[in-house]
């Protein structure tokens, strides 16, 4: 009896100990968290890009905050934090909170996301049965990277000028996700070249129609490329891609179908607006851009005809202590968040502008009237806009662009590029008994890079 037990125990121990040794490696190969995955499939990579709350709804607001679509009362201005106050008055420094909760960090967060995908996608075999998925993920990443770079170069560099672009300081072009690599600034020319290259490649990869407008499509990439060329004042190329884009999608929403009485007239259309090509919105909104504070320039409000539906659909007449001022309620996001994706109305206006600049008055006005009739009260006859020549047509198109694309995050870059064309737009702020002026082509049109980024990376700061 005793020896049987003895032998059993000894054998047991030998088996146990030896089995540890042999199975050890396999035993330790188990992954610790089943929700953790090394990105190794198309689904893994696509899932990074489908994080729509991070990818689509955290666009920079510095441009809109610095531009002149709105103004603040002194009371509201004084209630803001310092960073926003500095940005509103085009201050010298401290325009961005340090850390990751600022426009710079949010843009580069998407750059990193895109780079994580681009680094890994070439390691994944492109299978014939999932070729579309592979193309979509790569095209999506390229689109996202280009779009983020475009924001950064529009905010933190001077307006594109062919004469000086190769020497003007551009932006850090981070092309892989390795955080050990230092950041350095490329030139403005290199920055735009990178945006264009990424977008062109994405056009070849993205589908004509995406699963949802929260994901980019060919039209989205073409629209973004047209926007890029417009900002570079390369109107031929802008025309080319705006035109290609409209061939894929040109729908316009008839505003007669909307209710101007709604708190937010586009609330039911956040993801189903026929004009939406790709859906993005600005972070927040920050306190200053909240409709409870941001007041619309009354001159701008008065410039809408009373039969122009946009007057009532875009704007709310403030009451109480704010009587006599107007608030914006016409965001395509359908709430107080500002939509800044690509929509067909922007493309129609880009093509109209390019036609006008190339002297084609008729085509320019045709595009403009196609858009505006959808904004006109259909119980009153629409009188098409006319012009003596292409020059006048261009002025009218730019005026309508201002009115149509109010609070869309486009005004700041429009001021920058139009001043390069000699528009001579001078910005004025009056707040707290003090006046602030921003003259055309001022160095302050290139915002200061967040101070902590400069001190950690040693990059060159913009002169102010």
């Amino acid at each position, binding site marked *: 009896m005793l020896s049987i037990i*003895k032998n059993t*125990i*000894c054998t047991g*121990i030998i088996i*146990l*100990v030896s089995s*540890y040794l042999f199975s050890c*490696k396999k*035993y*330790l*190969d188990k992954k*610790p*968290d*089943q*929700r*953790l*995955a*090394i*990105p190794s499939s198309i*689904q*893994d990579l696509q*899932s*990074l890009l*489908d*994080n*729509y709350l*991070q990818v689509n709804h955290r666009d920079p607001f510095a441009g809109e905050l610095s531009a002149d679509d709105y103004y603040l*009362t002194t*009371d*509201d201005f004084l*209630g803001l934090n*310092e960073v926003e106050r500095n940005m509103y008055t085009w201050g010298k420094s401290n325009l961005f909170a340090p*850390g*990751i909760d600022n426009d710079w*960090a949010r843009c*580069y*967060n998407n750059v*990193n996301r895109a780079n*994580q995908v681009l680094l890994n996608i070439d390691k994944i075999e492109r299978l014939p049965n999932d070729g579309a998925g592979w193309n979509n993920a790569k095209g999506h990443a390229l689109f996202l990277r280009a779009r983020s770079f475009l924001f950064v170069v529009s905010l933190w560099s001077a307006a594109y000028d062919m004469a000086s672009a190769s020497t003007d300081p551009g932006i850090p072009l*981070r092309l892989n*996700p390795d*955080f050990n690599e230092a*950041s350095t600034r490329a030139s403005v020319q290199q920055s735009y070249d990178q945006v264009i290259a990424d977008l062109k490649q994405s056009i070849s990869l993205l589908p004509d129609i995406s*699963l949802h407008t*929260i*994901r980019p499509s060919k039209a989205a990439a073409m629209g973004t490329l047209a926007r890029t060329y417009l900002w570079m004042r390369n109107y031929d190329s802008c025309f080319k891609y705006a035109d290609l884009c409209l061939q894929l999608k040109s729908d316009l929403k008839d505003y007669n179908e909307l209710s101007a009485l709604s*708190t*937010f007239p586009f*609330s*039911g259309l956040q*993801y189903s607006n026929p004009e939406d090509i790709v859906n993005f919105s600005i972070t927040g909104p920050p306190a200053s851009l909240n409709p*409870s504070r941001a007041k619309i320039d009354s001159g701008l409000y008065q410039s809408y005809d009373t039969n122009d539906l946009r007057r009532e659909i875009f704007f709310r007449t403030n009451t*109480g*202590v*704010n009587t006599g001022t107007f608030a914006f309620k016409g965001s395509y996001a359908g*709430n*107080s*968040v500002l939509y800044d994706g690509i929509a067909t109305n922007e493309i129609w206006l880009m093509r109209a502008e390019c036609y006008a600049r190339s002297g084609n008055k008729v085509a320019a006005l045709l595009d403009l009237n196609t858009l505006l009739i959808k904004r006109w009260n259909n119980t009153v006859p629409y009188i098409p806009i006319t012009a003596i020549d292409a020059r006048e047509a261009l002025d009218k198109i730019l005026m309508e662009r201002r009115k149509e694309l109010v609070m869309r995050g486009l005004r700041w870059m429009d001021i920058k590029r139009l001043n390069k064309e000699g528009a001579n737009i001078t910005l004025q702020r009056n707040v707290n008994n003090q006046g602030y002026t921003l003259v055309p082509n001022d160095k302050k049109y290139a915002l200061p890079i967040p101070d902590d980024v400069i*001190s*950690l990376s040693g990059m060159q700061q913009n002169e102010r």
Partner: protein
Amino acid sequence: MQKIFLLLLISFFVALQATGQDQNNAIKLNGRVLSTDQKPIAGATLSSKLHGTEASSDDDGNFSIQLLPGTDTLIISHIGFLQKRLPLNQTTNSSLIIVMERSSLELEEVMVSTGIEKIPKERATGSFALINNKLFNEQVGTGVLNRLQSITNGYTSFPLRNTGDNLSVVRGLSTLSVNIAKPLIILDNFEYQGDINNINPNDVENITFLKDAAAGSIWGAKAANGVIVITTKKGLLNQPVKVELNTNLTIADKPDLFYSKNISSGDFIDLEKYLFSEGYYNSMLPYPEYYPLSPVVNLLDKANRGIISDSEADAGINAFRSQDVRKEYEKYFYKNSVNQQYAISLSGGTKNLAWILSGGFDKNSSELNARYNRVNMRFDNTYVPFKNLEINSSVYYTQSKTTAGRPAVGSISAMGGAIAPYTLFADENGNPLPVYTTYNPSYLDTAGGGRLLDWRYFPLDDYKHISNQTNIENLNAVLGIRYKVFTGFSIDIKYRYQSQHTETEYLQGQGSFATRNLINSFSQLTPGSVIYKIPKGDILDLSNSYTNSQNLRSQLNFSKQWHTHEIVALAGSEISESVNKNNYYRTYGHNRDILTYVDVDYTNTYPILPYRSNGFIPNSSGFGKRNNRFVSFYANGAYTYKTRYTLSASARRDASNAFGVKTNDKWKPLWSTGVSWEISNEPFYKLQLLYYLRLKMTYGYQGNIDPAKVALTTIRYSNINPLTLTPYSVVDNFYNPELKWEQVSMLNTAVEWASKNRRLSGSFEYYEKKMADLYAATRIESTMGIGFATMVRNAGKMKGRGFDIELNSINIDRKFRWATHFIFNTYKDKVLKLKNPSTLLGSDIAGSTGFTGLEGYSPFVYFAYQWAGLDPATGDPQGYLDRQVSKDYGAITYEGTKFSDLKYIGSQFPRIFGSLGNSFSWRNFSLNIRVIYKFNYYFRRESINYRSLVNQSIGHSDYSLRWQKPGDELSTTVPSFIYPVNNSRNSFYLNSEILATKADHIRLQYINISYDLNKQVFKKLPFSQATLYVVSNNLGIIWKANEFGIDPDYNNNNIPPAKSIAVGLRISL
């Protein structure tokens, strides 16, 4: 009592076996000498009183002695044990078991457990702190750990500046990461992976702290923060059935809610009036759906719009001035807390079976009427079927149920801030009053045209509609076999299975504001009907978490004694796996009575009231599974020569499945070595004053891991994108091939000494530790785009050193006995290296709320902006910029302040700490008083934060001390209030040296008074012994360095627990 039983038992055996003995011949008596904890005693001398024959016991405690027949007395003696006299009548050669007791109280506890083995303390080279049963039970409580900080040499806690939570550490910090700074907890032999509150303190026999590398490195990569070994009570062989009962009742007062320094209602109202006149609310008033605004602001607005007259408004406002929301909390939500504890244990042992069966029941009701019920059941037995084989099995089962109570002070908040300090929860008749925390009453008056559910919030009733319950079930079972293969060698195999199931049921009834709010928000109002996209009914959130861990350990032990040599060694391996699964989900439209729910549409957006923006119905469902595997090999040995020189060594290798780490990096050998020299045992040693003197020195390595850290890029799936219906994810870990485990080395030197009769004894230890490869957050430039401002890397190096001194004295030892236990600890540490520190701005250091990680300073160093007083003309705080007095706060709190401009304050961790316990006894009374002290450290005092005051309605009573007119600067240091608020000015003041406050204090921790009843005194007692005890806890501070009435352990708006008193009775049958 026990002694008497043993003697009786032995005599019984002896008597039994003596019959039938041939009286004519010398007889041989065989037996075994054991200590009370069943360890064999080697070298015990046995002698016959009448005939002078002698023998001694061998390694296993076995002996054999020749005796002459007839009545005799056997005398058994051994150093360190009480001499034993055993009357012999007629004896046989049957095996006699002699149990010897240690010779003094202090020596009684000399066995220390590492969880892997038990070693006699006098042969251990490592640093151990022992909490014996008596000391442990001087305090009363539901949990095991709370009471240890005040009685353990080298274990303390300090509040973290950012959260106010207390962090308990052994010998200071060994890591820079708070989340992995906790000591490893071992229950008997295995890491306890369940909720530590499961363990019933009545099941605890003693607790051992493993403080240095030699003691703890046997636990390898998890031991760097120190190890706490909890040893449970065990049954003993050859012991009659023993029954012990313990019951106590603890009652605590309501906590002092007025301890927190809040702005007075009057001051707050005046401020609101001022802000109103400045137009601060102008951007909010037109949007009643966004901004609830306070009652005063709403009255001012009504007066402003002519709805009510100014005098009506003033009357309404002035009525608020005398109100204080804390009174409301105190009146309606707080009560005395009552904790009840009942425990019973039965134990016993026969020749080959020792067993204990215990049960416990705890029933607590907190000051907020939160309930906690716990049931414990434990069965532990050791079976010795035949010589050399020992089978141990134990099952420990715990079930607990926690039910959340009423809202705690400050927990009711409004959109973007606190509710006004004059808020009332009930009218004078006790009827609930609504509090507007989310929407303005003027919005609710018209919202939905009366077709929505009541949208008001009544704090007085709301909690009654919410039920939040957590049930925990835990089973911890161990099966162990120990087999002596042949002399000196034994094999141990132990298997442990632990499973814990935690179930949380959070039901927000339809009557609760949260549920009504959600239902209303998603109501679609159409002419003539209301469509509820979220159905009416309760919202139920259920979550389940299952942890299963299994360990299998096999170990070979070797022990041999020959001549003057002794070797004790072991080698073993352990394989373990811990699997955690969890899932959580929500149901809407839940009906408690018939257990039904209603499906909702998670895939479409709906306009949400009141903003009419579109949104998805909140979905909270998910699954998770974690799996941690370890494979470890370890060995440990000690060699003792001439009982005075001991050399020890240990080594352990751990491997884990930390995801993606290269196999090479998975292995981390950790080792230690130690020596000890008992000088007092040397022939030349003659010092009588230090009758016992031993020197020890150890050195070795321990590790620390963070299971959440992996080295490869990984993504984590978070949810389904409701638009594309595809899963989405975030990058969870960024590729970092350099990721390693933290490594801590420690050098420990110690002196242990005692006077001849142990009237005085103590230990003096000095340690130095070096911590390398510490995980530390290093700043990452945001262009890297990782989405975090910092990145955790193996970037830190730190060193620490300190003294652990312990003194025991018996000051008076007559009828009246007075003994003192004194603990004195010092600790000092500094960061040696941290990557990327040069870019830290001075302002980051002054504003830091946690580890600053500054090379050359303690990780918890406290620096502040230099203070140049208040500006006599304006009351502005003044600092320094380029050594000039300055008010350029933007520059001071950002780039303008260099590190050298900061004022060094000191450490936020106590540099000196410890406790003093005095025990008095007279006849059957005894009294124990414990005082703890913490010295030489600082905390940042809270003061008025004007930004929080204006934006979030969170005010501090320092507001009333603010500078208001020239001359005030002579009597106050609180800056004037300015509007608009300047954030930089604010943060300069809050992080300036003027608020740095000395935290030193002495606290009366507990008083224990007890009265013993026993049969010797009270002959008619129905039980052998009973102790009646009264313990009072949280008695407060005796002395503190600060003059502001602040208890440094409860800063940051934490309220100290109220004084409590416990009455209890312990009975042995």
